[in-house]
């Protein structure tokens, strides 16, 4: 039995019905990680001991006739910026390389309570600052579809692991596209729910007004099942809304007949890799086949200003958030003759180059002159972007647009052209600025085997409708297969 090919729902159904045991599902996935992860470096910590106990508890519940939960025995991985009780949480930084949290992030806790089994932590850009998963102290992750390319980032380890069949689901965090862009690069499905849907408690923040937890799966029914488990109020995160959610799994099955779906226009399609433009046309055609009406819509303010606005807000926020890493309260400490020297040495040694540069830019933006001339205008432009989307969604149910302007980058581009990497967030970051739900959906592969994903967006708290749209398209396009990690080099060889 090839357990690694099973979906989340197939595993849970089989475990609940006694067809297979959580322990054997776990063993199969651990074995696959041990055998093949050396090729792509997506998992940075395996938690085998605690995973065995969790899987045995699920098997015991089934044997005793108790409900093992909706995700019974499903192995899952989480990005290494989610706190995990008793398991190191490093943010892939020297700053936290030995840090072992005393509690689980709410998202991790909810997955475990649903019967899922935490098998390990995944690689990421240091402190989630990057789009390539190359700035990790554990070394870069490679794209499982083509090892000469990056997996995207910052949740690149999570996306690569799901694509490689190391787990049917992984969690990531998304500040400007960090779940959706790597999902696109690795050819899997990724979702950033509305701001306020999932608690961020226990996630090491990058920029709190933008951060959101997002699952990565290989099909949209699994995604809806995960969203059902993960969403809900949390007294430890007051930004997480306490409204009563619908069943997202049921809503996903409702179809899109009669819905109005806009395709984004008004951007320079010449600057987008051709297969990704064609992917949008294909997705629109699938919507039409499923009974939706297709219209065109432009977002002039968003298209021109979202990425600049995003970097002002995110870096300003990040420089404040990361001030707590001072060598005393958290993380790496280096001795110094004076207090200031100790701070400086600790931060210099603990943070990598990219993080230090982003902190510098963020600090600059918050100093006199720059604050009034850059940061404050950015917060106003953010409101204008949110208003532009609100107006759009008064007239249509959803939007289809690119998630990334480019197919997966070749390794090393971040060093050659960092501003081009920043501009790669042009389409993804708007969902974070406006707090909207957004899905990165695979709609096929190029002839060379590179994935082509599109972005679907909906109104704030319109997550259920967005899942229905994504599933309707997936029903037409098919869900992506597992990457041929057994074949050395992937499709690039």
């Amino acid at each position, binding site marked *: 039995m090839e357990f690694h090919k099973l979906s989340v729902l197939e595993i849970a159904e089989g475990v609940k019905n006694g067809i297979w045991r959580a322990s054997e599902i776990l063993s199969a996935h651990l074995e696959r990680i041990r055998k093949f992860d050396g090729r792509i470096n997506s998992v940075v910590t395996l938690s085998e001991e605690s995973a065995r106990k969790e899987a045995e508890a699920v098997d015991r519940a089934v044997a005793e006739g108790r409900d093992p939960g909706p995700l019974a025995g499903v192995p899952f991985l989480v990005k290494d910026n989610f706190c995990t009780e008793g398991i190191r949480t490093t943010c892939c930084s020297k700053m936290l390389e030995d840090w072992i949290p005393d509690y689980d992030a709410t998202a991790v806790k909810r997955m475990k309570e649903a019967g899922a089994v935490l098998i390990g932590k995944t690689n990421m850009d240091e402190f989630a600052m990057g789009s390539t998963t190359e700035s990790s102290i554990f070394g870069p992750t490679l794209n499982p579809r083509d090892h000469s390319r990056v997996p995207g980032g910052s949740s690149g380890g999570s996306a690569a692991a799901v694509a490689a069949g190391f787990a049917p689901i992984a969690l990531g965090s998304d500040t400007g596209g960090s779940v959706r862009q790597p999902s696109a690069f690795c050819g899997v499905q990724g979702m950033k729910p509305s701001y306020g849907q999932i608690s961020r408690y226990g996630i090491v923040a990058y920029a709190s007004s933008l951060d959101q937890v997002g699952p990565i799966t290989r099909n949209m029914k699994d995604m809806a099942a995960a969203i059902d488990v993960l969403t809900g109020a949390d007294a430890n995160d007051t930004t997480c809304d306490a409204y009563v959610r619908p069943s997202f799994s049921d809503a996903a099955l409702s179809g899109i007949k009669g819905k109005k779906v806009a395709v984004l226009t008004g951007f320079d399609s010449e600057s987008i890799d051709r297969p990704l433009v064609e992917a949008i046309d294909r997705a629109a055609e699938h919507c039409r086949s499923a009974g939706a009406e297709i219209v065109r819509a432009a977002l002039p303010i968003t298209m021109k200003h979202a990425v600049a606005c995003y970097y002002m807000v995110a870096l300003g926020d990040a420089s404040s958030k990361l001030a707590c890493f001072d060598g005393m309260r958290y993380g790496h400490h280096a001795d110094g003759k004076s207090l200031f020297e100790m701070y400086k040495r600790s931060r*210099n040694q603990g943070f990598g180059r990219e993080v230090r*540069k982003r902190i510098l830019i963020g*600090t600059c933006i918050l*100093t006199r002159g*720059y604050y009034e001339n850059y940061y404050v205008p950015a917060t*106003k432009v953010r*409101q204008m972007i949110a208003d532009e989307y609100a107006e759009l969604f008064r007239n249509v149910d959803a939007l289809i647009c690119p998630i990334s302007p480019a197919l997966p980058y070749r390794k090393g581009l971040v060093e050659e052209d960092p*501003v081009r990497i*920043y501009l790669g967030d042009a389409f993804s970051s708007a969902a974070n600025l406006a707090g909207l739900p957004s899905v990165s959906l695979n709609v096929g592969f190029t002839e060379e085997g590179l994935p082509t994903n599109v972005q679907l967006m909906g109104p704030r708290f319109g997550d259920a409708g967005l899942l229905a749209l994504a599933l309707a398209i997936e029903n037409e396009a098919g869900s992506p297969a597992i990457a041929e990690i057994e074949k050395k080099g992937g499709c690039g060889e």
Partner: protein
Amino acid sequence: MIKKMVMDEERLREVLGFSCIGLPEEEYAEVLDRVNAVLRMCDEMQELDSSNVSPFEWDVIKAPARRKDSPVAWNGRERLLDRAPVREGDFFRVPRIIARDDIEPEEEE
């Protein structure tokens, strides 16, 4: 009136101090290029007329999540003490980390 700005070396030194980050002088030019490239990326945004727009804030909350304002028993003391690198009775033993005379000042790392 919104102004376009450029970061220079003097301001960079000031920002390095604010952010408690050190930078070797040979990297100043590269960082200044990077900061100024980001500022140029943002210049067009300043040209939008946002005079009648308020700064963004989250206001779409359907039902706020609040916890009760009441004391909660916490029993993690022993568990946390057991995880301390060095425990001394009911306390964490921590090294002296500031105002040490045995540390030589270093050049920028």
